[in-house]
């Protein structure tokens, strides 16, 4: 694993919300990648980059405790909100946007309590989706769905959000808007965000830190985003993808 030096963009004293220590992921006891060590601090935006099948979702699931890790340790030190890949939502359910956002506020057995509409309205307002409140989720466009899932994330009050390919089905414009909205929300609410995305240009523009994984070369690169995006392993796979003016000094 290559670990670059810490980023000057993020205060080193910001509290750690998620810590992975020598985390090993894999299938049927066989590690997929070298052990991963990283700290996600408050306010940071992390990009997780890797090819299809490289283990990004498996890594997320281990971070979230949904799947057991093969080795190492994960410390979840804050409440987490998770936005899974779009096909993880069962769209047979005719749930309204307000009901989806309300789900963000439910923890444990909290579904037994009556819900406050005000918190849902505030969250929808924060992402500019108030007009969608009474529509059914499945009838929305992909861009609108992501907006609603970001509202759910806001409603949750979580300090750390993990998003797995949130812009996968979007066109370039919707994708740029969604990433911009995500960036605004993390600044406004002091949210730490870890996002998996294949859309490098949009991600590179806003990421503070990055994790590049490559199971073919057994390579894990962790560190400040601009350094990771200029690492030889990353460049060997993707070439120079950085937008103008974002090159590392």
């Amino acid at each position, binding site marked *: 694993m290559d670990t670059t030096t810490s980023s000057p963009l993020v205060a080193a004293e910001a509290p750690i919300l998620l810590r992975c220590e020598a985390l090993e992921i894999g299938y049927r006891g066989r590690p997929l990648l070298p052990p991963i060590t990283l700290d996600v601090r408050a306010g940071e935006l992390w990009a997780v980059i890797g090819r299809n099948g490289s283990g990004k979702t498996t890594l997320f*699931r281990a971070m*979230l*405790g*949904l799947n057991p890790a093969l080795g190492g340790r994960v410390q979840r030190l804050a409440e*987490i*909100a*998770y*936005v*899974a890949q779009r096909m*993880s*939502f*069962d769209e*047979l*359910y*005719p*749930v*309204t946007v307000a*009901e*989806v956002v*309300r*789900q*963000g506020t*439910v*923890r*444990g*057995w909290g*579904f*037994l309590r009556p*819900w406050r509409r005000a918190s849902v309205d505030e969250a929808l307002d924060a992402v500019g989706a108030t007009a969608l409140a009474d529509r*059914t989720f499945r*009838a929305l466009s992909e861009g609108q769905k992501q907006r609603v899932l970001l509202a759910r994330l806001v409603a*949750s009050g979580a300090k750390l959000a993990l998003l797995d390919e949130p812009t996968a089905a979007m066109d370039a414009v919707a994708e740029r808007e969604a990433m911009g909205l995500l960036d605004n929300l993390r600044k406004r609410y002091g949210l730490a965000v870890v996002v998996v995305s294949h859309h490098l240009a949009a991600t590179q523009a806003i990421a503070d830190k990055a994790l590049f994984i490559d199971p073919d070369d057994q390579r894990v690169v962790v560190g400040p985003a601009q350094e990771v995006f200029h690492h030889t392993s990353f460049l060997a796979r993707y070439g120079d993808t950085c937008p103008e003016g974002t090159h590392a000094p």
Partner: protein
Amino acid sequence: MHPETPTWSDFVAAFELFRDPILCGVAAGGVLGLLSVFIVLRRMVFVTATLTQASGLGVALGFFAHIHLDWHIPPTLSALLTALGAAGLISLRAERLRLSRESVLAAVWLLCSAAAVLVGDRITQEAHDIGAILFGTAVLVRPEDLQLVLGVGGLVAVTTILCREGFVFSGFDPDGARVQGLPVRLLELLLVGLITLEVGVTTRALGALPVFGFSVLPGVAALLAAPRLGWALPLAGLFGALSGGLGYLLAFFGMFPVGASQAAVAAGFVVLMIPLRALRGG
């Protein structure tokens, strides 16, 4: 009109006799209708089919034990026990046996169906016909069965309504629900438990066919008709209750078997809602 065809005045004159079975059908249809929304959304239709068949077997076993072995096991209890046994079997993680879930369901369903017919063959000469158990041809309901249907139905309905949001969240986005600490597996078991309980109790009173019909068709009709889940739940309860009551009337005036009439009315709601859905779109 055919001289033997029952009239409305015949019905009114004998209403005392019909009140309990109608009430039983309405109550069972209403509660199973409520559950049917989750059964359909969670793709548990064949789970319910298996549970109703297991309950039918349980009822037959209860009668068999009473008639041939002189064991006094209430058929409702034996129905519940076999339904619980079937629920336990189908709740096993089929992938650990390298089998698909549907093959486990099919195996349990076929086992229960065959066993019910075999056991039923040994009780047909007695007062209890296997046809009544499986297809619900019985016209009357015993008072104790009605009380059980009402009591258990009330409990199941209240629990379902209280937990509806948990059922929805854990079905719509199970990973998101787990991350937020919802007891997703427990909710799944609770839902299967509620279905098992309601199916076990109502199968004794109504028969397996109408119980299976109420467990699926009102939910299908309501999801076709309602644009959102909040409306689909009460609508499914209403469709189920109406199927129980109107089905009994159809059986009386048409001189049809009761269980099949109730299932047919429930299916009628589905047929009626299809054009509505086509018009509404979405």
